């Protein structure tokens, strides 16, 4: 039985037996290369649920505001976000039923658009691992694995780290090479080059806050950017303001970011947001040996201290 059928079965069972109020998953509304989040409350509707490499949203984002009991379709990275949310007391373990999906990576459709020289995809059909895309003037067969999101290419947790039901067998670990290749390049560049890089990418930001809103861990009741008393950061799109927003947001995810890439995928202007969060995740791993969201009751590295913590930054 394929994973999508299994997923629908589990969802039906949960709703029929009233174990949950809602199943949060993905559905296909016909837009090529895309799925959209759906909220299913009626067991009759479970056949709307889909599972494919276009299931790119991190649905953990919808858990924090809920008062009901929800089942959620979650990839490896999404389950890590859920673990962080539980550890940070934002959701109660008993109120969330995790439908864990081993995930071979999701498609970054911007890579497809890029490959097609910004071609207008009007139809996309997925069969096995091949996406047949059609536009008005082209047809192309594309391999899913050639267009995976960057975060998926360095994914070390393709299987759910926590779930109530796992849909399908564990996938073997990915042979990750050069996880920090881009980060290392940036680290090795001069400060002028780094500044130029950040200036260029962040100057595209239009302060729409899609990155923040797509992030499951940006759950602050009021984000520092929205506070006006005091105002921590200006509201314009001057680079001085956008850079403060992105750096502070990235710092706020220190030791918490699970590298799901939701921030970057949501950006309408292709700002390289993950560069900041990935660099911080790398530092956290090197300094504290910590990766976020791997086990319950784990404390975030910056929320406590050990006597043997690195101190060489104190000069």
């Amino acid at each position, binding site marked *: 039985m394929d994973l999508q059928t299994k997923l629908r079965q589990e969802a039906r069972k949960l709703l029929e037996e009233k174990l949950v109020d809602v199943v949060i998953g993905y559905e296909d*509304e016909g*837009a*090529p290369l*895309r*799925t*959209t*989040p*759906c*909220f299913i409350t009626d067991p009759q509707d479970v056949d709307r649920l889909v599972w494919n490499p276009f299931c790119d*949203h991190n649905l953990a*984002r*919808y858990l924090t505001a809920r008062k009901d009991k929800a089942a959620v379709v979650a990839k490896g990275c999404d389950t890590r976000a859920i673990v962080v949310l539980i550890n940070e007391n934002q959701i109660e373990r008993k109120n969330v039923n995790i439908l864990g999906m081993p995930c071979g990576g999701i498609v970054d459709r*911007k890579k497809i*658009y*890029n490959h097609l020289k*910004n071609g*207008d*995809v*009007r139809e996309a059909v997925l069969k096995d691992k091949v996406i047949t895309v059609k536009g*008005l003037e082209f047809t192309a067969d594309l391999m899913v694995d050639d267009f995976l999101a960057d975060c998926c290419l360095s994914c070390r947790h393709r299987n759910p780290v926590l779930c109530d039901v796992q849909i399908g067998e564990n996938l073997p670990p990915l042979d990750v090479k050069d996880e920090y290749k881009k980060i290392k390049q940036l680290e090795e560049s001069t400060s002028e080059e780094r500044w130029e890089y950040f200036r260029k990418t962040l100057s*595209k930001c*239009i*302060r*729409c*806050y*899609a990155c*923040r*809103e*797509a992030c499951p861990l940006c759950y602050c009741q*009021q984000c520092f950017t*929205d506070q*006006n008393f005091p*105002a921590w950061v*200006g*509201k*314009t*799109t*001057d680079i001085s303001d956008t850079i403060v927003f992105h750096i502070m947001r990235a710092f706020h995810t220190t030791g918490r970011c699970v590298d799901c890439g939701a921030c970057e*995928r*949501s950006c*309408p*202007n*292709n700002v390289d947001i993950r560069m900041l969060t990935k660099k911080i995740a790398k530092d956290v791993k090197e300094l504290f040996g910590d990766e976020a969201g791997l086990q319950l009751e784990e404390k975030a590295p910056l929320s406590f201290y050990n006597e043997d913590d690195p101190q060489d930054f104190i000069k």
Partner: protein
Amino acid sequence: MRTTPRILSSEKIMKTIKKDKINTVLDFLIKKYQVFGPVQKDDLVVDFGRIQNGAQACLEFSNTNEPAKKLFFPQAETLFSYTGSDAAQVSELKPEKPRIIFGMRPCDAKSLSLLDAVFDGPDYKDPYYIVKRKNTTIFTLACRRPRSNCFCDSLGIGPFSKKDTDVFMADLGDRYVFEPITPGGADILNKIPGLENARPTDAERLKNLRSEAESKVARKVDLDNLPEKLARIFDHPFWDGIHQKCLGCGICTYLCPTCHCFDIVDEQKDDKGRRIRIWDSCSYPTFTLEASGHNPRATGKERMRQRLMHKFRYFVENYGEIACVGCGRCINHCPVGSDLIREIENINNLK
């Protein structure tokens, strides 16, 4: 509201130039005008930017990522400056040189006429917008590459619309043709060196290209009864579900050519300060959050309803037109795949 003077059809002599000479047109214009046009920002993004020489323009594009509204209603704009508690100092609003926007799509051109209704309406005039608008000449470029989510046709615009522009341009493949629409546009066109009179067959060619482009606008939406329908469903349970997946980000409003809501804030460093206006979005909780903590649009439900009601009902009641041009940007860029056309269809289908 602005009424655009139109020129007599006898004066509408179409001009043409070879494609590889288009840079000379831009280079000529740049000497006299501030020229803004589509510029390649990265592999996927073309956006309006100031063009210093003709080669910077990227005229092979579908549409700009961001709409043209920012050239008249910038995302952040200083209203005035001050020192200490001294009176406001407003700087000269008139641009140093008159401006030309070169290569705007007809949908964005239409959006300006809708913004005129707000900023140059019958009551309060907005000098910041009006001065920029009055000092700008629009060269629209007919859209030969409508994208999958374009639906301008349903708004009565169409990819080859000649409305709301000063000069209409179209790409004939090896040449561009120019058609003056307003006297101001004709004046400028007459001064551009190197333009030849269009060929007798060009009108027919244009007609064919127009049909071809129109056939590419695949999506349609029925808007006929929408304003009246919306007036009847303010309290419908439909709104309880529609916002569920919405993240509450500002993409659909910021990338909308007609959305124009803004915030006004003060910024001060030492003694020097300024009051600025910046884009704001009805999707944000802070949009209506009051100092008392009360928020009349407390959840995504009220905010989503406000957005749709404003575009398709309130704007119609206030200005007689729908505040949408069918550019599809909100659909293309919604991070969770919300589809405005589908939402409207759902509303149309409500009992």
